[in-house]
């Protein structure tokens, strides 16, 4: 009798445990983006300014970065764009303390694509020995164009969401391009050097997401499991399941999308 009761209690405990860790109305979303064409080395950048510093770095055009080993595409952006404002998982609250950092380093922006939840600040800093400026041409937020002396940092906050990724540039070194994605929620994913992208702790339910890459614009047509899928305007309705990871597997983006 006693053993049975203990067992029942133990089971109950397990049930409570698992529900608190997973099934609370949140799920994850995963993609892997790969390039559907022959790999070709990206063009080199002709360094016309501060050649003494920037000229030695072997700078390349990073508007499309494909990993030669596994054809993974970096810097594909997936963001939540549903009409219903997103419910925000508590795990994101801590992130508001720390700023997003975009560094001017080695005569390029690092990272090239930065995700900015409007609750977070963004720091633009310069780790180079040469001076930079950072011109951010937001649409809904006031624009900025500060000088960033060697070693300097400026801190910026954005109160309004931007509909499209915003271009950032440096007028002193015109090859320098980067992007910030300013949204009212933290559900912004950027693919890594292997093309992997994961957005964690999304609210469960069916929502619209948008998929974008700087050279292609909206990603409109892809191959998934060998068949062609159309994502009109780069928009996809995705069902996020409670306590689960919705995995899109490998998504192949054809070379023609980047023409």
């Amino acid at each position, binding site marked *: 009798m006693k053993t049975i009761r203990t067992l029942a209690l133990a089971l109950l405990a397990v049930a409570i445990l698992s529900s608190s860790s997973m099934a609370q109305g949140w799920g994850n979303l995963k993609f892997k983006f790969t390039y559907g064409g022959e790999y070709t080395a990206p063009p080199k950048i002709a360094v016309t300014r501060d050649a003494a510093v920037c000229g030695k770095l072997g700078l390349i055009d*990073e*508007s499309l970065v494909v990993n030669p080993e596994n054809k993974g595409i970096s810097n594909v952006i997936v963001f939540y764009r549903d009409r219903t404002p997103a419910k925000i998982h508590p795990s994101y609250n801590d992130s508001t303390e720390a700023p997003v950092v975009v560094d001017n380093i080695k005569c390029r922006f690092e990272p090239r694509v930065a995700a900015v939840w409007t609750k977070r600040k963004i720091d633009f800093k310069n780790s180079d020995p040469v*001076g930079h*400026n950072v011109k951010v041409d937001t649409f809904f937020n*006031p624009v900025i164009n500060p000088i*960033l002396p060697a070693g300097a940092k400026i801190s910026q906050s954005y109160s309004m969401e931007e*509909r499209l990724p915003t271009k950032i540039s440096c*007028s*002193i070194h*015109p090859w320098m391009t980067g992007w910030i994605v300013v949204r009212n929620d933290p559900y912004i994913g950027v693919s890594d050097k292997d093309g992997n992208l994961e957005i964690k702790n999304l609210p469960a339910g069916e929502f619209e997401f948008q998929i974008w890459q700087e050279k292609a614009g909206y990603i409109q047509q892809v191959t998934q499991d060998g068949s062609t899928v159309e994502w009109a305007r780069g928009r996809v309705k995705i069902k996020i399941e409670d306590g689960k990871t919705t995995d899109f597997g490998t998504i192949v983006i054809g070379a023609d999308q980047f023409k």
Partner: protein
Amino acid sequence: MKLQNKTTISGHQLSLALAGVLVACSLGLTGCSDPAAFQVNEAYIRAVEFKSDVTKPLMAETPETELSDVQIKNVSEVLEGLYGTPDNPNLPGGVGLNGFLSLRKLKVAAGPVTYSGDKDSLTGLESGLYRRHCAHCHGVTGDGHGPTAQFLNPYPRDYRMGQFKFKLTDADGTFKKPSKADFDHILMEGIPGTAMPSFRVLSGPEREAIIDYVIYLAMRGQTERALIQAAYDTANVNGEIDGNSEKILVRFNDDQYVSDDIEAIKEIVQPVILPWANGGNGTVQRTIEDAPAGWDSDESVEQGRKLFFQSKANCFSCHGQTGLGDGQTNLFDNWTLEHLGNEPGDAVGSADDGEIAGIPEYFYHNELAQMGVVKPRNIRPRNLRLGNYRGGRRPIDIYQRITGGIEGTPMPGNTKLTQQEAWSLVAYVMSLPYEATSRPKTAPSFQGVGTNK
């Protein structure tokens, strides 16, 4: 939007349509012969259609999604509901304007030029001030595309982006809206070295009315841009939107939805209005402390000269080794960049070689020029040896340009200089016209980065 299909919607047609009365202006009713109408911002519609899709404007091809004529007309109707017409301006309510602009002043600044001494009974001012004094350069719509615009260099300001160059409101590194005092300074002094004349001849109340009107045109232009964005988003919703088969912003003909739709429009308009109207957020004049004693001493000039070449200020990289403005000659301003692509390198290019940052000459003439886009030109950093300061020649003006930057152009602001350093740069810049050209200063080498090549 079809590129060939020039969409100009007469204000009269719309106000009549809004009232639900279908009277064709072609019947020759009074007022209909007046050609004054705000032009639709076709070039921006094109930019949105192309840039949302691909980074590069696909020249001859049509973009994936185009706004339909019905949607464009709806944007114009909404805009007219909010702002009225060139002859009969209006101001949107419930969006935080709070008396920032005076409708009465707008009405005297607006309207056709009158020569009959037509005066407003309260203000005693003649109407039609804007069209008399400003429109031949800045255009009736404020698009910077009046009849004389294309012959001027720089081009007259297109107010519709809401960006302005010369103001004392930029302090903390974020560009702010100009204050009314900034506009008055521009009207009093003009912009020396450009076609923008001084309007000292106008009375204070006349300038006040015109200033309200310029702000009104800027707000209207910014609102139009925001509405076009919203219309584009709506146009792209997959499938039908319940009860809105035409995917328009405001369903004027449907009592069931119209008030909800108008409420939704307010959310689009408010972010445009607040930075102008909200005293705490943009329209506050910065106070610059007086220059410290000795700011223009020889030592200070020498300090400024060094800074000019250092990473902390980096002036030489654009203004050149000798300040002639030849350090970076292939940049574009924001008004031009809008029509170019998004690719790295499109921010620079030469407008002189028949190919304008990826836009061929023929494309400009056949398409962009038809939409009222002035021919792309490079923006040149100022030749600092001429001693011509467009934003004003008081030391404080130069101080503001160096620390605040010049909005809409590559000239950056600098919040990292100490006050003393910034003043030393002012001193150096102002000494440049007098520096003997026989001993042109060349760059000292700092950290091996003092030269361009």
